[in-house]
C-alpha cells in the first residue's frame, strides 16, 4: 500500500494546479504539445513539480494529460514520440521532484486525459481503441512509478469507464476519476449529458476510489456541485476548478482570478464535503499556496 487512500481518510488532500499555462509562460509555443516537454525540456517540468510541492501540494500530477497514442498522433505536429517512453519519462521526472523534496508523505498521480476522439454518433472512436490506448499509457505510468491514477477532464462517461478499466487491467493502485461538467438550467452535466448522479453511480461501480470534477467551471460555480455530489455518494470527492473564466488580452488568454478568492471557494467545497481539492487551467503555485494556507488554518 502506498498510503494515498489512508492519507485521504486522515486529511484533506491538496492536488497541484495547472501545467499547460505554466509551460506557455516559459516558452511552450503554438502547435507544440505540452506532453513533449517531458523529453524536450525535462528541467522545466522538474521545476514546475518542485514549485507545486513547495507551495504545499500533497499530490502532483504527471505531465501526461494528452499522452495516449491517439492524442499524441493528433497533437504532435512533427511526429509523435513513443508513447510508453514518454509516459515513463514524465513519471520519472515527477518522481525525481518528489524524491528531492524535503518533506515526505507526498504522492504522484499518473495523469490521464481524454483521447480527443469521440464515440459514435459524434465520432468513430471504438471502445477497443480507447481501452487499448489507455492501457498502453497506464502500463507505462505504472512502470514510471506513480502512486495513483488521475483520470480527468472526461466529458463522456463511457470514455472515463474505458480508462478506469484499462488502469485496473495493469495496476492495483487507486484510481481517481474526474468528469468535466457545465452548469445548465437543470443542473450540472457533461457535454454528453452525463449527470452527477450517473457519475456517482457508474464511476464508483467501476471501481474508482475517488470521483469528482475538474475544468470548465470556475471555483465559484463548482461549490454547489461539491455539495450535490456529496449527497449522492459516500466515495471521497476531488474538485479542481479553473482560475475563473479566461479573458482575452492582446490575443492571449489571461485568468484573472485572485488566488485568495480561489482559495476561499475551495475551502467552501471542503466544507460542502470535498475530500481533496486542487486547481486546473490558469491556476499556479500561488493558488495552491493560498489554498494550503487556508487548509492549514481549518
Amino acid at each position, binding site marked *: 500500500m502506498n498510503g494515498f487512500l489512508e492519507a485521504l481518510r486522515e486529511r484533506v488532500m491538496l492536488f497541484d494546479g495547472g501545467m499547460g499555462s505554466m509551460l*506557455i509562460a516559459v516558452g511552450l*509555443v*503554438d*502547435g507544440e504539445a505540452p506532453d513533449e516537454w517531458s523529453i524536450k525540456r525535462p528541467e522545466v517540468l522538474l521545476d514546475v513539480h518542485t514549485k507545486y510541492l513547495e507551495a504545499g501540494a500533497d499530490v502532483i500530477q504527471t505531465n501526461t494529460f494528452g499522452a495516449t497514442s491517439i492524442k499524441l498522433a*493528433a*497533437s504532435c505536429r512533427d511526429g509523435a514520440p513513443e508513447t510508453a517512453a514518454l509516459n515513463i519519462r514524465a513519471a520519472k521526472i515527477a518522481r525525481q521532484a518528489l524524491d528531492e523534496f524535503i518533506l515526505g508523505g507526498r504522492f504522484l498521480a499518473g495523469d490521464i486525459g481524454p483521447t*480527443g476522439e*469521440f464515440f459514435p*454518433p*459524434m*465520432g468513430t472512436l471504438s471502445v477497443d481503441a480507447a481501452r487499448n490506448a489507455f492501457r498502453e499509457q497506464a502500463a507505462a505510468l505504472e512502470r514510471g512509478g506513480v502512486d495513483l491514477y488521475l483520470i480527468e477532464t472526461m466529458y463522456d462517461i463511457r470514455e472515463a469507464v474505458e480508462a478506469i478499466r484499462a488502469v485496473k487491467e495493469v495496476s492495483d493502485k487507486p484510481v481517481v476519476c474526474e468528469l468535466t461538467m457545465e452548469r*445548465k*438550467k*437543470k443542473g450540472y*452535466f*457533461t*457535454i*454528453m*449529458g452525463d449527470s452527477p448522479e450517473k457519475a456517482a453511480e457508474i464511476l464508483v461501480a467501476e471501481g474508482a476510489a475517488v470521483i469528482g470534477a475538474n475544468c470548465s467551471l470556475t471555483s465559484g460555480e463548482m461549490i454547489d456541485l461539491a455539495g450535490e455530489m456529496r449527497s449522492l455518494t459516500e466515495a471521497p470527492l476531488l474538485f479542481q476548478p479553473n482560475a475563473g473564466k*479566461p479573458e*482575452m488580452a492582446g*490575443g*492571449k*488568454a489571461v485568468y484573472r482570478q485572485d488566488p485568495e478568492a480561489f482559495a476561499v471557494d475551495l475551502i467552501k467545497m471542503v466544507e460542502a464535503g470535498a475530500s481533496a481539492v486542487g486547481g486546473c487551467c490558469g491556476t499556479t503555485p500561488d493558488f495552491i499556496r493560498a489554498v494550503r494556507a487556508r487548509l492549514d488554518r481549518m
Partner: protein
Amino acid sequence: MKEHLKECMQAIIDGDTERSEKLAKLTLEKGMPVLEVINKGFVAGIREVGRLWEEGELFLPELVIGADAMKMAMGILRPALEGGEGGPDRLGHVVIGTIEGDIHDIGKTLVATMLAANGFEVTDLGADVPVAKFVETAEEKGADWIAISALLTTTMPGQKKVIEQLEAKSLGNIRVMVGGAPCSAEWASEIGADGYAGDAVAAVALAKGKTG
C-alpha cells in the same frame, strides 16, 4: 398533411434517420408540397432540437443524431426543389474550419452540421486549416461566410489573419464569424469579424441574420 408535418418534426427531434428517410420519400411519392414539408416539418424539428439543446434538455449526442436525420431528409427533398418554382431562398454558402495549429474538431463539426441541416451549403475544411486555404476556398466557392473555430488562445490570432487576408484581396464582402471556447463578441469586434457564435444554434442565427 398536418399529421405528416408533425411526424417529420418528431423524426428529427428523435434523431430517427430511418424514419426521416421514409417520411421524406413519402412526401415525394404522395406529391405533397415539398417546401411546406421542409419548413413546417423538418426545419421545425431541427429548430426544436436546437432550442432543447440551448435549454439543456438535450445534449451533444441528440443534437448530432437530430442533425443527421435532418441531412438525410434534406438530401432526398432538396433535388425536388432545385429549378422548381418557389424554391427556398438561397441561404448562402459557408466555408468552415478550425484554424491552423488547432486540431479541435467537434465544435466546428457541430456548427457545420447544424448549418447544413438548416439549409446552408457548407464546405467543411476540417481542422488545422491554413489561413490562405480559408480565403482561397471562400473565393473559389463564392462563399457568403467564412466560419473559423479556434479552441486555443495560441491559435486565435489566426482568425484575425484570415480577415486581414480577405481585406488584402478585396474580399471584404465575405463575412466572417468566429467561435470556440476562448472567443467572445469582444474578440470578434476587436479583430473586425462580422460576428461571434457561442454555439451551433447561435451560428445558424448569425448566418441567417446577415445573409442576403
